[in-house]
């Protein structure tokens, strides 16, 4: 696992904004790339655009084979012809977040102020969810779209949805924050910190300058992924999928079990998750984006009252949570729903029964998919989309 090359270089379709942007931290990026994919057709009135916001380790390849992993799109059960986010009706856009590693400006991008060019690495300025959203807004403006029909996303994608609705209320007709929260909890920050420390502890990380050796901090990043992956599942899901089964159970019951030789299926699964992840994700991006999530706190940003973020909003909201999600539990969605009530917003709020934990929003959940399709259909009627 130690001898893994740096991420394959792939040209991701993108747009460059030469004017750059000033980040929340005060640093000015002189030019900003936003890599994105679209599906479906923008109608003549430009009113049928749906922006999908991806989560921490997601990217813009929502509904097509991923160019790096060769796997299907991360939401190909939701986005596509005849699916809940119906590409026969809607023009779907998904952009790689600022700070990401799939073509948008991030820690892998070359520093403009150093020659010969080296990647930013950990010198990449801290970005916020708000910065990510402003980069997406530049893309939406570039595409000539004044108002998005809907903005949707789960987990960190849901944070972006909330930020969109708060910062650009007139540009969002419907907002669907899924399995998310208005701030990252202490417990969630704690899990992120374990992941970051695993990366820091990997000697191949080299203080973030691993490009110099051509290696990546694969062990550290894999452990970070393994730890995070546990938080995406539920106890019931782990029990159902793996239980206490051994992958290499001794054939003879009398045979001694070695301390590390026999592997529980759940261990093998996590190791697999960790080792495949490092082929597609940049460690410094992981550090940057987990930090952006940790910093997210819309309540504090609005003087301690989340309702102030949505005052006077005309956006139609649909909050969705899942019963077994302990990373972004239903109580977090409920407090957002109540804040929206205080702002007299139009809000739907549903908790979907599922034993799949936080990951449920990515998986086959027919009730969720039907509800999403129905909510969008209802909104389309109100928006006058035929």
């Amino acid at each position, binding site marked *: 696992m130690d001898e893994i090359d740096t991420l394959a270089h792939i040209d991701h379709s993108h747009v460059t904004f030469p004017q750059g942007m000033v980040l929340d931290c005060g640093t000015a990026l002189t030019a900003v790339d936003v890599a994105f994919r679209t599906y479906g057709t923008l109608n003549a009135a430009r009113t049928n655009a749906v922006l999908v916001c991806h989560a921490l380790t997601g990217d813009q390849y929502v509904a097509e084979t991923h160019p790096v992993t060769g796997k299907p799109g991360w939401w190909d059960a939701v986005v596509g012809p005849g699916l809940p986010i119906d590409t026969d009706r809607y023009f779907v856009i998904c952009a790689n977040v600022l700070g990401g590693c799939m073509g948008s400006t991030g820690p892998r991008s070359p520093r403009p102020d150093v020659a010969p060019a080296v990647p930013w690495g950990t010198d990449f300025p801290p970005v916020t969810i708000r910065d990510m959203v402003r980069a997406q807004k530049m893309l939406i403006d570039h595409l000539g779209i004044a108002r998005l029909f809907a903005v949707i996303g789960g987990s960190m994608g849901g944070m972006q949805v909330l930020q969109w609705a708060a910062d650009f209320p007139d540009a969002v007709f419907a907002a669907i924050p899924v399995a998310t929260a208005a701030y990252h909890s202490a417990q969630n920050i704690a899990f992120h910190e374990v992941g970051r420390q695993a990366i820091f502890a990997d000697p191949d990380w080299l203080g973030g300058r691993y490009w110099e050796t051509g290696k990546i901090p694969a062990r550290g990043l894999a452990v970070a992924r393994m730890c995070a992956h546990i938080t995406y599942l539920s106890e019931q899901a782990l029990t159902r999928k793996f239980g206490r089964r051994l992958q290499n159970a001794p054939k003879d019951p009398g045979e001694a079990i070695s301390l590390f030789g026999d592997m529980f299926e759940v261990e093998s699964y996590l190791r697999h998750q960790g080792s495949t992840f490092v082929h597609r994700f940049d460690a410094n991006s992981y550090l940057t984006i987990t930090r952006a999530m940790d910093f997210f706190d819309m309540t504090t940003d609005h003087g301690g009252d989340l309702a102030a973020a949505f005052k006077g909003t005309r956006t139609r909201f649909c909050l969705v949570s899942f019963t077994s999600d302990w990373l972004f539990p239903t109580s977090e969605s409920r407090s957002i729903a109540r804040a929206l009530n*205080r702002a007299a917003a*139009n809000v739907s709020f549903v908790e979907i029964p599922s034993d799949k934990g936080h990951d449920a929003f990515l998986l086959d959940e027919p009730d969720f998919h039907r509800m999403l399709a129905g909510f969008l259909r209802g909104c389309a009627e109100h928006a006058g989309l035929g």
Partner: protein
Amino acid sequence: MRGWDEMNNEAPVRFVAKNMRVDLHLIGDMIAPGTRVLDIGSGDGALIEHLYRTKGCDARGIEIDMAEVTRSVTHGLAVMHGDADVDLAHYPDAAFDYVVLSRTLQAVERPAEVLRQMLRIGARAVVSFPNFGHWLVRWQLLRRGRMPVTPTWNRSWHETPNIHPCTIHDFFDLCAQEGYAVEQWLAADEAGRRAPWRRYPRLANLFGEQAVVLLRRA
């Protein structure tokens, strides 16, 4: 008596005979077109759908039964999961023109507080409730000496969600005590047919199976 079996086959989690269609039109008739309406205990969403389709209202719902919430949202209606006893406090003053409570008042923990919240967040409240003063209820209690079980009050005392039954007189007393003005009211039978004695509260309290009342702050 209509629909004994039909009523008994329903298994409402919290409401008695939660068939919105019964009083849907009666309530709808009290609501002006194009207004903002919050339906508390919106059930399957039939009323908000009706108000949106026929009157162009901005109608939203709160419902405690998650399966009903999911069904409503899947149907394209703006419904959130919530509890009338808890969640009304989160709405701002005068956010709605009408707040509707259909056959739910008798099932909430604090009916007076729920009414107070309704008339805080809405200019007007429409409340419908099954009438415990109906002659059959009185007769059963008198004759058998046991808690009445009727098509309306169709679950036994130990499993009914209806913890605060009241009569039409009781409700009017509460309105007077709280200082609410009754703008319109009527009594109806279980099928939602207006009763001819709606101008006579005594008769309505004896023969009306349910009442629909439009209130405002006096």
